[in-house]
């Protein structure tokens, strides 16, 4: 069994401190052009609009629309759900996620042999960037992949809307169940 390793604490240790990414966090606000600002909800609890926008793009790469079933991260507004989830997290975890976003934005293109920012790339290039994190020789980048993957997938498949596609009929509480 594996429970959610959402925003793994190791982001903070090896990952963010090692990479000095926490120190760069303020850059995120100015460094990332918010591509989809219009779609960002007004009542974000933790993330800034630029961070939300980047997370939305990352979530769309982890759980795109179409393929085996239609529903994707954007249909559930997964980035906003993650923002709400982070509101109950320890501040250092939130800082960890911010650092991870930053590494995706700036380091993942380099890791996949591209220049520029993740959020400015086309879909195929973004997939290649995330894949480069997955197979990276750097434990830091692999941890970023594992942490963001868990965060996105756990919250996507915790949502009722995703269950029909899996054939999962959801909780039984409140339903009449016959005891053997």
């Amino acid at each position: 069994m594996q429970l959610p390793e959402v925003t793994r604490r190791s982001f903070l240790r090896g990952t963010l401190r090692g990479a000095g990414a926490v120190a760069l966090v303020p850059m995120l606000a100015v460094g990332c052009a918010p591509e989809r600002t219009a779609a960002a909800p007004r009542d974000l609890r933790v993330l800034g609009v630029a961070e939300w926008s980047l997370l939305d793009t990352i979530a769309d790469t982890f759980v795109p629309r179409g393929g085996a079933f239609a529903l994707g991260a954007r249909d559930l507004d997964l980035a906003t759900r993650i923002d709400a989830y982070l509101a109950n997290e320890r501040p250092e975890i939130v800082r960890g996620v911010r650092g991870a976003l930053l590494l995706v934005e700036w380091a993942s293109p380099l890791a996949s042999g591209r220049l520029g920012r993740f959020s400015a790339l086309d879909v195929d290039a973004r997939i290649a960037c995330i894949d480069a994190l997955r197979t990276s020789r750097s434990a830091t980048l692999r941890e970023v992949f594992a942490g963001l993957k868990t965060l996105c997938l756990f919250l996507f498949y915790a949502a009722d809307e995703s269950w029909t596609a899996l054939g999962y009929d959801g909780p039984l509480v409140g339903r009449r169940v016959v005891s053997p």
Partner: protein
Amino acid sequence: MIAQGAALRAPVARRTHTLVVGSGAGGAVVAHALATAGVETVVVEEGGHFLGRDMTQRDDEMLPALYRSAGQQLTRDGLVNVLQGSCYGGSTVINAADCEPTPAPVYEHWRLHHGLALDPGEIAASQARVFAMLGVRPIEAEQVNRNNALPMDGARSLGWRTGTFLHNREGCIGSGYCMIGCAYDAKKGAHLNYLPRAVEAGADVYTDVRIERIVPRSGGGFLASGFVVERGPLTPRLPFEVQAERIVLAAGAVHSPAILDASGLARDLPALGRNVSLQPQLPVAALFPDSVDVVAWRGIPQSTYCSEFDANTREHGLGGFRFEPLSVGVAQLASNLGGFGADHKALMAQLRHAAMALLLVPDAPSGHLAWTRGERGFTASIDYTPTPEWAQRLRQGLRVVADAYFEAGAREVRPASDVFEPLCGRRDLARADSFPIRSGVTRLISAHVQGSCRMGTDPRGSVVDLEHQVHGVPGLYVVDASVFPTSASTHTMIPVMTFADRAARRMLARGV
């Protein structure tokens, strides 16, 4: 009386004879034995109070409610997810209800190598009382779901020994949600037997209260201090103090030593926080053809095991490996399956045809702990590196699990890894020998953290004596999974409860 933190409006300062810190497998049993013997007993529990009616069967709600760090506690390098319950009843509320006593070779190992001359008759009597209280019984054949049956069919067909667990369920409807709390109170954790009976006998229980420090008092006894905490963030709300003649730490193998450390006792206890076993487990999924509907999420999550490769000896205690099917919620499962994007969606769409198991590989106690204390309590740094010998057993075990699944008709076997290509048939089995065990690419879990306050006779190499009393600190005890010198069993609830029953009876027998 059970007082939940939210109901407390003013700082609490109490006196009692015995304070039990932690209400899980160890603490609940001690509290019950002492309270029923007439000892004034207070139990404090950092987590919240939940019963069946509170369980929603949703991963996103129950993991944060019932688990330490919402199930996110990791080793320092992120390789192992160290799971612990944190609620009224501790890990007994969220465990798989498998009841596996400590095997005889482990007791032999402890006697030979750690000086634990335990009386087998006394242990047997304690275990019998625990079994009776929990209502331990065999899982019936008709309660074994397909997820548990399939790989065991494969194993038996290969000539391997398999078994069905004993468990502590009564009136189970097979909903499949044991690991996020039973909504029907059918899984008989300590919150449904030991703790309510302790309360009936006069014990007072406080939930949402964290003890952080213990100070010996000049006139004898101790002052334990901490906070009533806000449920969820665990931030302090109100000061909480208890004066007690005796303190029993039962905060689990990560936090009992943290309290001793924060109380300034580490200097005289060089073994504190050392010799930690995690007994890590590797999740493995197997995809069956579309004609095979596994529907792993329904039924008792874990009911069978393959013990053919157990290698328990008096020389090293638990050894070898075993595999045990286990299903978890779909959200938890999603993050275990390798890959992302369209490929991952394709896998998830086949979930009805997926079976899951854990490969459990007992380890040597090689980990150690350190802690920082902040506003939200202790954060543990768990240092743990699997040994090459352990890694070799894990890879050997992976081959075996995959073989059993293929024998049962699986078309693909996927250990929890983001880089390892699935095994697509017996021709691929040899690739298991190169399975990578590295943080960020492999996902291991631990449900049996043990050993940070090892029991023994020498204060230089252990923390508590054979009575569970901290060396050099009369009246201060540790009674939980911390005390095992090496891994006690492939499943640690019964071993912890058995030791706790023995410990409490010894306290009573000595008139203390």
